[in-house]
């Protein structure tokens, strides 16, 4: 069959909370990831993305709540999960003096699911010389090598923290086409924690935005683009009343001009705003960058500044 069919849940987090001392790093997170999807996990530094991934792998333990990965409890089955899940950490530890081909044999020996041919194919495709030592490789090549060995384990789920940090644009395209192929049978999933909104906008079908430990937006990216709109209204509006509507994510007023961001049902929103008989109502599409800024800006109440970059 040609068409990917996403249905099975591979990650389930319920009320997941993690405190480091008095700091709440993950705040009552409820989160699902389905098979066959690529999820972009976004948020400012310190939003809780890395901690969330570490809890899923059983490296960090939740203060309360629970997470299952591939149906296994993350705390109790950490070893099993780490075997079935490919984790590409932000800081990539490798053995500098080992040759690439020796490293492949060494690394592969730890995993029963290891596909040596797949690893060699990827190295050839990505032009990583197998006779060089890892220390002789460029930063970008090391990043690709790490990715290649993780992929060659054939993990059901890939968790990646900033995988493209050291890569040039052409390399990013190369690894992304592998990711796309990777999930296209609908039986694998990828979670991509990143700051690169352009990359997420390109290959992710779902997006989760975190801020201060909580999830401030989550969903199918195309649905988000269809539902999130900026309304530019000129005229008198009862701002305090509108602020109470549950779809409202931001509201900024300058004199008679009001800019409103809502996250659901744009047509209904247009009607509700029109009921106040304003002079004009303009409905604008939002790209992921605008959605992201509105989602994190809303929660922090940082209303100025962000608005400027949205206009």
């Amino acid at each position: 069959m040609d068409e990917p069919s996403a249905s099975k849940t591979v990650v389930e987090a319920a009320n997941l909370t993690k405190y480091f001392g008095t700091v709440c790093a993950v705040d009552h997170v409820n989160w699902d990831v389905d098979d066959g999807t690529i999820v972009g996990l976004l948020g400012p530094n310190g939003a809780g993305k890395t901690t969330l991934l570490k809890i899923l792998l059983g490296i960090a333990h939740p203060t309360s709540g629970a997470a299952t990965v591939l149906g296994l409890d993350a705390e109790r089955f950490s070893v099993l999960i780490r075997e079935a899940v490919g984790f590409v950490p932000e800081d990539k530890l490798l053995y500098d003096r080992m040759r690439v081909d020796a490293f492949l044999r060494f690394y592969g020996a730890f995993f029963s699911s290891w596909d040596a041919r797949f690893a060699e194919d990827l190295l050839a495709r990505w032009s990583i010389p197998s006779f060089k030592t890892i220390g002789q490789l460029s930063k970008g090549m090391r990043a690709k090598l790490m990715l290649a060995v993780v992929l060659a384990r054939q993990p059901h789920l890939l968790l990646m923290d900033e995988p493209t940090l050291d890569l040039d644009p052409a390399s990013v395209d190369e690894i992304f086409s592998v990711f796309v192929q990777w999930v296209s049978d609908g039986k694998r999933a990828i979670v991509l924690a990143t700051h690169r909104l352009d990359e997420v906008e390109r290959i992710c079908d779902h997006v989760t935005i975190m801020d201060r430990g909580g999830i401030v937006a989550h969903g199918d990216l195309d649905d988000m683009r269809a539902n999130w709109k900026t309304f530019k209204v000129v005229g008198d509006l009862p701002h305090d009343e509108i602020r109470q509507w549950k779809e409202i994510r931001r509201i900024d007023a300058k004199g008679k001009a009001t800019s409103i961001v809502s996250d659901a049902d744009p047509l209904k929103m247009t009607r509700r705003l029109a009921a106040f008989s304003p002079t004009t109502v303009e409905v604008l599409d939002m790209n992921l960058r605008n959605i992201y800024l509105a989602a994190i800006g809303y929660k922090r109440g940082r209303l100025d500044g962000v608005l400027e970059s949205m206009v």
Partner: protein
Amino acid sequence: MFHVRPESGEPIYRQLTRQIKHAITTGALKSGDKLPTVRQLAVDLVINPNTVARAYRELEHMGLLESGPRRGTFVKFSPPGMLLEERRRRLQPHIDGLIAEATVLGFTVDELVALLRKAARSKEK
């Protein structure tokens, strides 16, 4: 053949459906032509396979594409159906704009329809 601009704010699947429809209306794609598989197009454009699948699905619903297990996805050329769809598509932004404007000015749907009828009748005379 197709290209997408992920940053545009327009959902990628809609960019794809638009381009495929355009290719069919202009004759660049003909009835019976085989489209790339979901996987192939996703890899070529480096976009999510679910996005491609969604675009193909929508075009199937519109009757412009046809797909079967193992055979792949083909262009299904049915001129009247396609032309109507295309004509509607071109009219739609004007309708949307009119509805938005009418709503802002406080007209109900019935009033708008009545105005349209009246305007059309006076044009006919």
